[in-house]
């Protein structure tokens, strides 16, 4: 009896296992590994979503030494009434199973961003293959064009974007935003979302005057193998896209973006220039190493106001004059100049935000945390209130170090 039961159970188990299985099994070489996905919106069409998938070709990697591996990244595109349908259409051309789990770049075209990001976010959260830690980027122009920009330093355009994002984490102006953070911001009352704008822009070399241009172009052209006939473009992070709800409200440029980050207390690193206190026509460059921002809401007689206190630390990294700036007096002057510059940036940013009617700093959320009752009263009208709410900005700057030299070297000719 006992033995028979055992045998039966074993058979049952075996049949369960052997007859099941293999539904989700897929060999690793049968995957189309998506590394970036660009989503664009084509207004006025019945199938407005254009999805471009950047798929990595593993074969190209394996044959790097042998040469002739071909393109590292292959693009497939499809259109549809929804993102999933567009991908479905693209899939008809892809001989492998689309594998989205390793995709950590979601690039959204400007048009779609203006139209609204909800379909994108919904797709990302709902689909178990899409990762919430993927970065959301807004492309100036269309995402598809952006992906088709030729790569320069890295092996493929997706790696190029990754590199830019990694670098941006150190720079102050533009910070890449993972999707879950974006989602959190648009769902939190009194706060609006923002993310990075990426742009394919012409290389800075053509800004040089024509006389010097030839020499420079020849020098660089050799590296590119081209005669410089076609204008080279390269990707760059170009500011901060700010949203009103899920729709793109506008784009902050670099200094405005930094002003916004000052306000939100998120500045990490970067450099800024102020006028030389001795020779006002010269420039002193300062670095930003650490900063602290404190926002305190206050409500007096029903009037809401905010006070933003910023404390910024930094080093002196270069100066163009020969003045000795290492004295206490000079440092004090530099400090106040720096504080002024920061305050200007912050005010500009605030002005732009008010102009766009979007509270990306999250003044509303701060009010909600401190004064939940008052916020509940104004929650519905917050965007209008935000535009007019007074914000007092106090900046305190400190220059901690002056690099490896205290005062500039004095050449004999000028020392006389």
């Amino acid at each position: 009896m006992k033995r028979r039961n055992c045998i039966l159970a074993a058979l049952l188990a075996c049949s369960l296992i052997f007859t099941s299985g293999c539904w989700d099994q897929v060999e690793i070489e049968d995957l189309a590994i998506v590394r970036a996905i660009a989503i664009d919106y084509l207004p006025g069409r019945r199938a407005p979503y254009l999805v471009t998938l950047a798929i990595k070709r593993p074969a190209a990697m394996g044959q790097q030494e042998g040469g002739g591996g071909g393109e590292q990244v292959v693009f497939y595109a499809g259109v549809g009434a929804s993102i999933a349908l567009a991908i479905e259409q693209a899939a008809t051309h892809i001989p492998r199973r689309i594998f989205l789990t390793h995709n950590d770049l979601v690039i959204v075209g400007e048009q779609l961003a203006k139209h609204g990001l909800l379909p994108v976010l919904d797709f990302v959260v709902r689909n178990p293959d899409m990762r919430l830690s993927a970065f959301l980027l807004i492309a100036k122009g269309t995402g598809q064009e952006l992906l088709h920009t030729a790569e320069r330093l890295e092996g493929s355009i997706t790696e190029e974007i990754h590199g830019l994002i990694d670098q941006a984490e150190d720079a102050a102006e533009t910070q890449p935003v993972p999707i879950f953070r974006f989602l959190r911001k648009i769902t939190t009352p009194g706060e609006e979302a923002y993310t990075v704008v990426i742009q394919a822009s012409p290389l800075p070399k053509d800004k040089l005057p024509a006389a010097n241009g030839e020499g420079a172009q020849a020098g660089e052209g050799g590296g590119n193998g081209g005669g410089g006939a076609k204008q080279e473009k390269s990707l760059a992070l170009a500011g901060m896209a700010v949203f009103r709800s899920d729709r793109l409200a506008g784009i902050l440029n670099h200094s405005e973006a930094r002003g916004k980050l000052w306000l939100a207390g998120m500045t990490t690193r970067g450099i800024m220039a102020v006028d030389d206190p001795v020779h006002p026509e010269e420039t002193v460059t300062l670095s930003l190493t650490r900063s602290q921002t404190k926002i305190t809401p206050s409500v007096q007689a029903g009037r809401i106001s905010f006070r933003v206190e910023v404390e910024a630390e930094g080093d002196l990294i270069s100066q163009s004059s020969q003045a000795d700036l290492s004295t206490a007096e000079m440092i004090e002057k530099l400090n106040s100049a720096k504080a002024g510059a920061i305050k200007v940036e912050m005010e500009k940013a605030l002005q732009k935000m008010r102009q766009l009617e979007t509270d990306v700093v999250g003044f509303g959320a701060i009010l909600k945390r401190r004064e939940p009752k008052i916020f509940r009263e104004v929650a519905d009208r917050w965007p209008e209130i935000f535009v007019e709410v007074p914000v007092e900005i106090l900046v305190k700057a400190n220059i901690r170090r002056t690099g490896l030299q205290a005062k500039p070297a004095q050449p004999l000719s000028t020392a006389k």
Partner: protein
Amino acid sequence: MLEKGRISPRQTGQLLFITTIATVIFFAPSLIASLAGHDAWLAALLGPMFTLITLLLITWLGRKHPGQTIFQYSETILGKWLGKAVALLYVWGFLHIGAMAVREFGDFMTTSFMSHTPISVFNFSMLLLCAWSVLVGLEVIARMNEFIIILIVSFLLLILFFSLPNWELDYLLPFFARGPLPVLQAALIPAAWHGNIIVLAVILPFMTRPTRAFLAGTAAIFASTTLLTIGVVGMTAIFGPELSSSFLFPLHLFAQTINIGQIITRFESVVMTTWMAGIFIKTSVFYYCAALGLAQVLNLKEVRPVVLPLGIILGTLSISLFQDVTMLGNFLKETRPYYTISLYFLGLPLLLFAVTLIREKIFGVCFGEQTNEA
């Protein structure tokens, strides 16, 4: 005696801990957040306190009836037929909760990992494992659990630890903005899961030192409450209450956000492993309780004959109870807390407690007190 094995107080505590934490941390946080918002963590912290009442009742009843499970002493207290009815109600309760746990797991697997595989594969293979462990007995389940608990706790802590950089504690504010009512309502949700310590009423007589039952239960409740609260705090700090309330499997998305320097990332499979191990123990315990209960109601000599039929019932229930994930989610949020707490976790124990008191005080019946002290 149907069960020969004996388990130590520590093992009991661990079993109770896993039966509660195994599902509550995977499912409950978003449900709690949807009701309590910013104060979700408070609800998570308060909810299990309800369960202390259940714990007090069942340890008290257990002390009155040493060596008896709830199925047996319900007969002693309420008389043969009413007692058997209560016992059968409990058998059904254990089956129902077990089936729900299996279903939750199956749904998780099919939505998050293996979307092409039918849910029945997961449900039935899981139940097969559970059936085997029920056959080998409580002592073996407890021993396995000592292994699995290390796995589960360390994986959960790992996930929480690596998600720390994403936490923004500002999102926990404002504190207590909506007042106490939503918090109390939300507190019922973790309470519904923590009420799972009702299995103590079945395994208490098999403890080596039944006097330690209350201690073991309290320790289990506090441990799982702590872990759940940390989880809820983390989830609120990462997603904010508004976003997290929309999630089906919050811990899975929670793990998805982990990304430290592109290297420490992709923790979803860890979640799956953890959950599978937890569900295995939890379902085994409930399955075991149901099987033992049925065997005791039917006065069988051993558990063996009822294991297979109960397994089939469990499997069928786990598939047919809910049409889809939405129904499961709504049930977990809206029906389950009231149903389980009012009936199994508080209602029936209170009934047994009251009848015992009445019979003792008014009719002067003595329930095994003397033997306990002797």
